């Protein structure tokens, strides 16, 4: 059976921990791998450098992307993913603390598939990850692309 993998790019260690916790309890049968920067997310997708081992770093079915990250922001990362031949159809859902209308607008303009605001309690976060998992990893279909 194909592995159901979420790639999370978030510079906040706390948030990575909490999302990991919420995924563990909310998303049965799903895995989550986490990187700290947008650049690392791109490297991961490309299987470059430390991410060459696809057994340890399997191809994800969803990218959860924080917006405010140092060096390469979520928006820049999103743009590059959409430009890449291999990953242009990868579902990318923004997961951020910002509920600013202009951020939401920009995310959709750059072809994000969804926009989620980090909830303030662990319980809500767990619910959210369950929904994300059920929809994006289990129900959603995307076009096959030659790797």
């Amino acid at each position, binding site marked *: 059976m194909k592995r159901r993998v979420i790639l999370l790019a978030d510079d*906040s260690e*706390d*948030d990575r*921990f*909490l999302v990991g*916790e919420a995924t563990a309890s909310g998303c049965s049968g799903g895995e989550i791998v986490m990187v700290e920067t947008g650049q690392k997310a791109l490297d991961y997708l490309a299987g470059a450098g430390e991410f060459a081992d696809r057994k340890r770093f399997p191809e994800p079915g969803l990218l959860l992307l924080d917006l405010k990250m140092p060096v390469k922001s979520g928006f820049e990362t999103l743009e590059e993913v959409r430009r890449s031949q291999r990953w242009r159809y990868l579902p990318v859902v923004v997961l951020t*603390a*910002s509920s*600013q209308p202009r951020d939401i607008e920009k995310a959709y303009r750059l072809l994000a598939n969804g926009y989620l605001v*980090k*909830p*303030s*309690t*662990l*319980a809500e*976060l767990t619910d959210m990850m369950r929904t994300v998992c059920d929809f994006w990893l289990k129900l959603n279909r995307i076009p096959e692309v030659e790797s």
Partner: protein
Amino acid sequence: MKLRLRGSGRPVTARPLGLRRLRRYSSRLAAPTTGRIALAGYLAGPAVLLAHAFWSRPFELGSVMLYTAAVVVAGRLGGLPCGLFATAVGLGGMAWFELPPPGLGVEALEDKLRLLRFAGLGGLISYLSGRLHLELRGEREGEDYLRHFTQAVRDYGIMSLDPEGRVSAWNEGQERLTGYAAAEILDQPFERLFPPEERDRGTPQRLLREAREKGSVELEGRRLLKDGRQPWCYTLVSPSESGYTVVTQDMTRQRRQEERFRLAIESAPSGMVLVDEQGAIVLVNKQAELLFGYGREELLGRRVELLLPERLRLSHTVYRERYQAQPSARQMGQGRELLARRKDGTEFPVEIGLNPFRSEEGRFVLAAVVDVTERKKSEERLRKANEALERRVADLEEFSYTISHDLRAPLRSIEGFSRILLKRTEGKLGAEERALLDRIARAVNGMDRLIEDVLAFGRATRKPIEMTNVDLNFLVEDVLARYPASAASIRVIGPLAPVRGNEGLVTQILANLLSNAVKFVPPERRPEVEVSTRKRDGWVRLMVKDNGIGIPAAFRERIFRPFERIPGPIAHEGTGMGLAIVRKAAERLGGRVGVESEPGAWSLFWVDLPEAPP
């Protein structure tokens, strides 16, 4: 008004009425033919008589002279028809009394010639007398007409001058104008009517010379009256048979009006520029001189485009011509920024009011020019200050958003970690320790809500809103679905009246009022809430009534302020922001809020919102 027209070089004034007609009559007065014809007529009569007598036989002389005299007299008195009649009578008389009866040798050739001769000469006399008769009558009538006419126009002084410039005729108008009676002035040089300085300048002689050379000349200037006054007068001099005819009019009244017009323009607070049909400047005031930096004499006669920046001159010419085709009093260049140019080449923004009018001289446009540099500057200052303010508000908004956002991130961690800790320490920690962890998590939840509410309050204050018709029934249902209040009974007394508002703000109002209504109820009581509306005078009052703890009178105003909470027996999770948000939202929608209450029994919160138009 007096206008100096470009190119003509001579002063022209609104010409006194009827003057052209007067000039025509004054030339007829000097018609040269009459005297000659009269002379010819008077000489012709006796000459013909003598000629006739010369050809007649001596014994007939007396009777022929008699008949001829009759023809002359008849012609002189009655004109050609009378002369011819007298001739016919004469012929009859001669034939009857002096020639032998027919058949007795009457057919003598000489007798026939005699009769023929008389008939021819009689006809000639009659013709000449008739001409004379007509001329004299015409002359008399013309004189009568002119006399009546010149008397009727007493506002004009009319006089005749002989070739040397001495007064030879003087009408009543002249008498009224100058104060001189005809007897005092006749045969006097007309220079007497000019002030000394004009005389020194040789104006009178120049007038006569120009009248001779050009056919007529007009001039405006001061004239000297008998009493020494020197009013401003218009003078027309035209040459005539016997010298000159001079018409004079006192222009004091016109001059006063002109002066008033000039003063009104001069004292106007804006720059005034009067432009003629050709676009030439004919009058400017002091303000205009100051505004544009030109002296008056530099502007008069120049095209008005001189006052515009070079690049705009051509298009202005087009605009001006279009305007003159359909002139109306209005602001120039509405919606456009108008620029003017000073003499030194600098440009400045102006506002220009246009006023077209028509005078005898033609059509003019009076332009009132206001320098709006200062106003533009203060507008600009205001705009910049406004922009700076808006920027600061935006910065503040950004700042408060960032603060609250950055505050919430650690809160999320604290909450999340304490919850994880709670889960993982199950069975390892005592109940008391676990209760402490739970309190940490709940305190964090409270703080998070507070931040959320402060943000909502800020949004209710500033966010631009769009007003639409709002269906309260739908919104209440929506809110109830989002905040399920399990134990409470919420009754909607519907249908609720539609209001004019903003869905987002009305939702905030409803959500806060409903959550308050179920929250502040003593624990032993089951919350019962009623939602209803009442229409009155274009307003809809939305009412939410509960069976809660009620609000003491002292707090009924304060509870709508931010962070206000009522100290009481029930420890609530409220942030103190809910009702402040309700009031702010209602005010943004143009409405009001209020509360009625029976402490310990019920509270009724109401919001007045504009009724939705049908």
